[in-house]
C-alpha cells in the first residue's frame, strides 16, 4: 500500500495523520457560501426598507434606488423582489455550507442544487438588470451589486457540473 510516498505492509497500521495529504474542502463552495451570505444581508437590507423598518436607502449621489423600488417591477409574482433575494441567497448558502461537510462533499444532490440555484439566481438577476435598463430606466447600486454577486456565484458553481456528472468526486478535486 502506498500512501504519500511511504510504503507499508498489508498488516501494518499507519498513523494516518502523519502520512496523509491534507484534505482540502472545495474552495469554490467556500466562496459561494461567503458571497451568498453577503447576498442574504444585502437582500434583507432592501426588504427591511420595503416593509418600512428602514427609513431611507443609502443610495449615493445620483442613485435611483427609490425609483427602482417603487416601480411595478419591484414585485415578482406578487412577492417583493428583495424577499425572493433573501430566500434564494439563503438556499444557496445552505447548499454550499452543507457541501463543505465531508459526508456530503461528493453528493450529486449538492452539486446539482448549487448549479440549479445559482443558475436561476443568475438568470433572474439578468432579467432584473434588463428591467432597470429598458423598462424602469433607472439604476440602483444595490441591485447592481446583487447582479454581480449572482454572476460570481454562478461562475463559482460551474465546477459543480463535473461533480454532478460524475456522481461525486473526491472533495479535493
Amino acid at each position: 500500500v502506498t500512501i504519500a510516498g511511504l510504503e507499508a505492509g498489508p498488516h501494518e497500521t499507519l498513523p494516518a495523520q502523519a502520512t496523509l495529504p491534507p484534505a482540502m474542502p472545495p474552495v469554490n463552495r467556500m466562496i459561494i457560501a461567503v458571497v451568498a451570505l453577503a447576498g442574504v444581508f444585502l437582500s434583507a437590507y432592501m426588504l427591511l426598507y420595503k416593509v418600512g423598518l428602514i427609513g431611507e436607502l443609502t443610495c449615493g449621489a445620483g442613485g435611483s434606488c427609490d425609483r427602482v423600488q417603487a416601480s411595478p417591477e419591484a414585485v415578482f409574482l406578487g412577492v417583493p423582489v428583495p424577499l425572493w433575494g433573501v430566500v434564494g441567497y439563503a438556499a444557496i448558502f445552505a447548499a454550499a455550507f452543507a457541501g463543505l461537510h465531508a459526508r456530503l462533499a461528493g453528493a450529486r444532490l449538492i452539486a446539482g442544487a448549487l448549479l440549479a440555484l445559482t443558475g436561476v439566481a443568475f438568470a433572474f438577476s439578468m432579467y432584473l438588470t434588463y428591467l432597470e435598463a429598458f423598462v424602469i430606466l433607472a439604476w440602483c447600486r444595490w441591485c447592481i451589486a446583487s447582479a454581480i454577486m449572482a454572476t460570481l456565484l454562478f461562475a463559482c458553481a460551474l465546477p459543480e457540473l463535473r461533480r454532478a456528472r460524475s456522481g461525486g468526486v473526491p472533495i479535493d478535486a
Partner: protein
Amino acid sequence: VAQRQRKGAQPARQSATSLKPFYIILGVVALVGIGGILFAMRGGAGRGVATEPADLSGVTDAQELVARARGVAVGPDNAPVQVLVFSDYMCPWCAEFALGSEKQLKSEFVEPGQVQFIYYDFPLGGARVPSSRLVRASRCAEDQGRFWEFHDVLFERQRAWMGERAAPISTFNGYAQELGLDMDEFRGCLNSDRHQELVTANYVLGAQLGVSGTPTVFVNGRRVGNPTVWSNMREAVQQQIGS
C-alpha cells in the same frame, strides 16, 4: 487497513484545520452584515423623517417654476402645515400611500384644518402605459370638479388596469362614466393637449426638488422617509404642528 483509516481520518482533519479560515471569513461577513443592518435600522422607520430640507439650489427661478406648476390642494390655505406629495398613478407604492397614509392624513389632520395636502403629479414613465396620459385624465376629471374621486378610483383599481397590455383608455373612460362625468367633455379633454404643459411643469418642479422616486412627500419643505408607513407621516406632521 490503511485505506480504511484514511477514509475515517479525512473528515476529522478537514473540519479541524482546512475550514478554520473559512469560518473566520464567514463570521466577519455575518458581523458586518448584522452590524450594517442594525446601523441602518437605528431609530427605526422614523429615521429620516422630516430631517432633510428640500434642496432648492438647482432652481434658477423658483417662483416662475412654482407658478407654472400646480398641485391639487385640499385643506385650508392658512393651515400651519403644508404637505406636498409627488406621486405616480403607475407606482404600486403610491397606491399604498394613497389608500393608507393619505386617507389617514386627510381624516386626522386635513379635515380638522391643521394640514393642507397638495398632490403633484410626477409620472415616472414606463413602457406599458404612458403615465402622462393618466395624469391628463385626472386633470380632465378635475376640470369637472371630480379630481379626488378619479384619483381614488385609479389607485383603488390600479392592479386591474395595470394588467392590461395596451394603454387602457377605454377603461379610464369607463371610470369617468361611473363617476358621472360629462363624457363628451372628458373625451375631448383627454384627446387634446390641454394639460400637457401643466404635467410637464409639475414633473420639472419635482425634479428640481430632488424627487427621484414616488411617492415623495414634503412636510413644510422637509422630506419624509418612507411615507407609506403612517407612523412616519404622523410623526413628521406632529413635529411641524408642535414647532
